[in-house]
């Protein structure tokens, strides 16, 4: 347990020591989105009956930031350790792949949740969304952060250079999160794009998360839970196998 706990604590300290950049900066960026979109759209769009656009936007933005930061934490930690070579100090001790996995994933989840909460609290200044079902909120926050933390491990292990990681981030993570209904309700899209959105797992994370706030959503929250939960389980199994095999970590 001490091995796991130490690695977990080290991963937290790693982002906390530069929290201005890893926590404060993403919160600020989201607030800028909120400021601009809310100002332009609040008077024109009512995504759900009785829900103002600004209130609608807040959970989505908070979740998007949470997801991106959970991904950034594991992936950047791993690629930095690999490129500087200090990963040997994690590979030489008797840490099991399960300890390795849980320490990295939990620390990344913590960062994601902190940043998400930060966005949320700051956004309360603009509008106060309702809290219809807090347990759904929590469930999707946990599943979402864990999913992205695991994707971050996979990307961090696979990438050999920073630009490969950036490609993973820009061509996979960004489109998935942006095209997931953060800024709009997918009901307002043409039929084709609705179909496409429903193939995006991140859509279900955001949609289910928003259900927790407003009690209305595009898909049933149970469907969202099923889709995102299965994705998380499959990813966990894959990530653990990758770590156990030593792929790209132990030659």
């Amino acid at each position, binding site marked *: 347990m001490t091995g796991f706990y130490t690695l977990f604590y080290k991963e937290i300290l790693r982002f906390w020591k530069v929290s201005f950049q890893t926590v404060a900066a993403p919160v600020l960026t989201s607030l800028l989105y909120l400021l601009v979109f809310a100002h332009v759209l609040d008077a024109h769009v009512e995504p759900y009956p009785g829900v103002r656009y600004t209130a609608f936007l807040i959970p989505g933005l908070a979740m998007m930031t949470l997801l991106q930061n959970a991904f950034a934490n594991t992936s950047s930690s791993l690629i930095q350790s690999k490129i500087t070579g200090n990963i040997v*100090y994690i590979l*030489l001790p008797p840490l099991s792949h399960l300890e390795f996995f849980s320490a990295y994933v939990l620390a990344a989840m913590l960062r994601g949740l902190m940043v998400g909460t930060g966005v949320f609290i700051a956004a309360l200044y603009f509008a106060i969304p309702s809290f219809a079902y807090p347990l759904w909120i929590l469930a999707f926050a946990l599943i979402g952060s864990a999913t992205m933390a695991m994707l971050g491990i996979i990307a961090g292990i696979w990438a050999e250079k920073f630009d490969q990681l950036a490609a993973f981030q820009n061509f996979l993570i960004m489109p998935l999160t942006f095209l997931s209904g953060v800024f709009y309700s997918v009901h307002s899209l043409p039929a084709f794009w609705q179909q496409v959105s429903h193939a995006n797992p991140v859509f279900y994370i955001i949609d289910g998360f928003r259900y927790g706030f407003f009690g209305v959503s595009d898909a049933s929250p149970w469907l969202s839970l099923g889709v995102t939960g299965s994705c998380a389980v499959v990813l966990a199994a894959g990530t653990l196998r990758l770590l156990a095999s030593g792929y790209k970590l132990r030659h």
Partner: protein
Amino acid sequence: MTIAIRFAGISKQYGTFQALNDVSFNVAEGDFFALLGPNGAGKTTLISILGGLTHASCGEVTVMGHDVQRDYRQARRAVGIVPQELVFDPFFTVRETLQFQSGYFGLRSNDDWIDEILANLGLSEKADTNMRALSGGMKRRVMVAQALVHRPPVIVLDEPTAGVDVALRQTLWAFIRRLNTDGHTIVLTTHYLEEAEELCNRIAMLKQGRLIALEEKHQLMNRGRSRSLLLKLSSDTLPESLQGKLIGRTDDGYLELKLPDCSALEQILATLGNAGISVRDIQISKPDLEDIFLEMMQTPAPSLS
């Protein structure tokens, strides 16, 4: 004799390149063992396999009886490795680095031992300095400290003295010697062969991935080229009967003669005396490990396996 490390038939293939070729040998508990070989011989690869950083293509390695793959937890607890490459985590101070390393090995309160290591490596004053702010030699000392936090019975140092100043080399070796006297097994690679000659009791040599020598140091030192005699004489020309013994001349005017054994010395001096040549200076040179090493690396010796 208990075996601390057992390499059995280790081969390592990188694509089509064979970095290690059927290497087998044991390191006994309590040994101060030198692993020597030119650049690219496969020393670091062998150490990486020992530490589980690299998987062998075939063969088995055990540390204190634990297989590095199957019983990786026990095997890794038993060994502390100082990697060859200078690596560090720029986010943390020296003390944090060592506390984390202790924690990874399951040790919670290790500060007394950490302080002792820091003092022995001359790092006490830098304990709370960020790793980034250390000089290269100091970073290497921290790497040595990192390998020792869990008091491993087997300590492996892959070129620990590269870039380290003379004073620290002395203190480092004094510390490592003490650990060896306390019963720790030490494996060392270095290109400073006088270090290996001074410190180690057993020596293995690798060449192009093959084990070409494995001997007690004193046995190895008795091999190879015999002693030679360096003379500065009043005359430049040797008596005819000694011409055959001449090996060469040094830049500062010494003649180098073969000296198969000590009885030959009397004979040479007598011949010179008879010829009326006086000896201004005399030196006897023994082959050192470096000479033997170079000789072994030049001759295409068959592999020991």
